[in-house]
Structures are given as C-alpha cells and as structure tokens.
C-alpha cells in the first residue's frame, strides 16, 4: 500500500499588473477660433483676444504648428494666469499632435485676465502665446462661482 503524502506546504504564486493609466483627455475640437490661437512664425508678439460670457467653460488652445518647423515637437508647457478669479485654468496638456497645447478654461467672473502659454520644444526653444481673456455677463444671471483658479499649470 502506498504511503500517503502527509506533509504539505501550500502557497499561491500570483502575478499582477497595475491598472493602466487613464486615457489622455481628448484633443479640443471647438469650431472657430474663439479660444484658439494659431501662433505665427513671423508675428511673435500677437496677443490673442478671447471674449467669453461668464460661466462658459471650454478649452483654450495654443497651436504652434504654423510657427515651428515640421521637425519640432512640444515637450512641455506652462500656462500662467495673472488673475485666477476671472479665468480659471485646469488640466494643462499637450495635444496628440505634439504641436499644440491646451488648458481647460472657465470664465468665472466679469473682467479681464491675461493667460500666457509657454511651450518648450524638443530642441529647448521656448515659444510664448499670450491670451487676453475678457469675460462679460450680467451678475443677475450669476452662475455658481468658485474661488480662485491656479496661476501656474504645467504639463506633462
């Protein structure tokens, strides 16, 4: 009669994988150029005028595709805002073409604010695109107002 196996060490070898990172936000696809600046290769001091109604939320895009050579890509971006109570920024990112950048923008309160986009290229060059954000509206229709937005956002 066979001798039974009486001693046993048991364990469960396992493999695991961390969950995949969340997908990047989709590229901005607004029609028109209300909040989109197409940076010029020749006129580097142009300030893009952005006029929005209070409470509007959309993305602000700086497209450097026409200002840089085809070989250049954007490796990082910094968005700065002088007055975060009027224009609230969020979610700075480089878009999938690597030649334009975006940030979410909430026209939070009536007034003017300057937003400055600083895009750093893969060769170290820095291109700047300013925006003059003018927010209009009537306080009677005051939307829910949140506090100050950030004054600096970077990506990645």
């Amino acid at each position, binding site marked *: 009669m066979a*001798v*039974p*196996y*009486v*001693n*046993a*060490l*048991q*364990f*469960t*070898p*396992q*493999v*695991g*994988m*961390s*969950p995949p990172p969340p997908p990047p936000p989709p590229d901005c696809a607004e029609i028109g150029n209300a909040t989109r600046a197409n940076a010029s290769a020749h006129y580097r001091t142009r300030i893009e005028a952005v006029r929005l109604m209070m409470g509007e939320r959309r993305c602000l895009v700086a497209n450097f595709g026409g200002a840089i050579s085809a070989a250049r890509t954007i490796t990082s971006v910094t968005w700065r805002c002088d007055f975060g109570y009027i224009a609230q920024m969020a979610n700075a990112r480089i878009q999938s073409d690597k030649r334009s950048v975006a940030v979410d923008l909430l026209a939070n309160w009536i007034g003017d604010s300057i937003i400055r986009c600083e895009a750093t290229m893969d060769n170290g060059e820095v291109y700047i695109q300013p925006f003059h954000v003018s927010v209009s509206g009537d306080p009677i229709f005051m939307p829910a107002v949140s506090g100050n937005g950030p004054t600096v956002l970077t990506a990645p």
Partner: protein
Amino acid sequence: MNISWSSMFANGACTVAAYNPSGTLLWTGTLGVSATSPSFTDGTLHCQIVVDANGVVSFQTQNPSPVPGYSVRVTPQYDVSAKYTQAAAISGWGSPSNTGAAFDDASGSSVALAFDAGTGAATPNSVQFSPHGASGSVYVGVSSSQT
C-alpha cells in the same frame, strides 16, 4: 497603487523546481493547473508537487515530521517583465499581504524566502522559499516589482 492579482498559472504553465536544504535541485519540470509532478526523493524522503485547479502549489512529503529547509520555486514561462509577482499563502495565519516575510503557522518563526525579480523574459520573476513546518499552514506574503 492598486494591483489586480491572478494566479501565476492562469496565464499558462510554469516551471516548478524543488530544492533540498543544501540547495540541491531535486526535481524540476513544467506544471499547469490540476497537475502533479512525478514522485522524487531526497535520500529516503519521498516528495511530490501538486498544483490544484486554483493554482495552489503544494509541496508534499511522506515524512510525518516537519521537513524544514526545502524550497519550491515557481517561474512563469511567459513574459512577466512588465508585471509584478508575489506568493500568497492560503493558511489561516492571516490575510495575505505584501509584508515581504514568511512565517510558519504554528511557531510564527521566519521562513527563508528569496524573491528573484528576474531580468526579462528569459529569466522572469519568480519566488522561492523554504517550508518551515508541516500541515500546509504556512503564510507567505511577498511582493516586488520589475520595471
């Protein structure tokens, strides 16, 4: 960071190896779920390795007394270079966790344990430890990562 764990055998068969306390390889082979190794011996000690349907590995002996110092190594045959590996126990010692330690259920004393992070698909992650006691009541929790 949340990591979802699954049996190392769920993705395919693994190479299983058994060593005696001197580090001598006693047996190695490929086992999948619901598989049993051939019987092998170390001197007069008869041993075998069983993998059940849930991927639980049992190193079994016919010696009625504890046989400390033996080791079992499980190495996936698939690429785990971008994954994590761990060995978790099924004993009543406690809930499996990533403590990096192994204990005998009865005495609470440490069990020798070695984790090999591997260097890629050719030498993937594996874990090795030595059973301390008997009765299949060994709690093992270890994890590491390879990037």
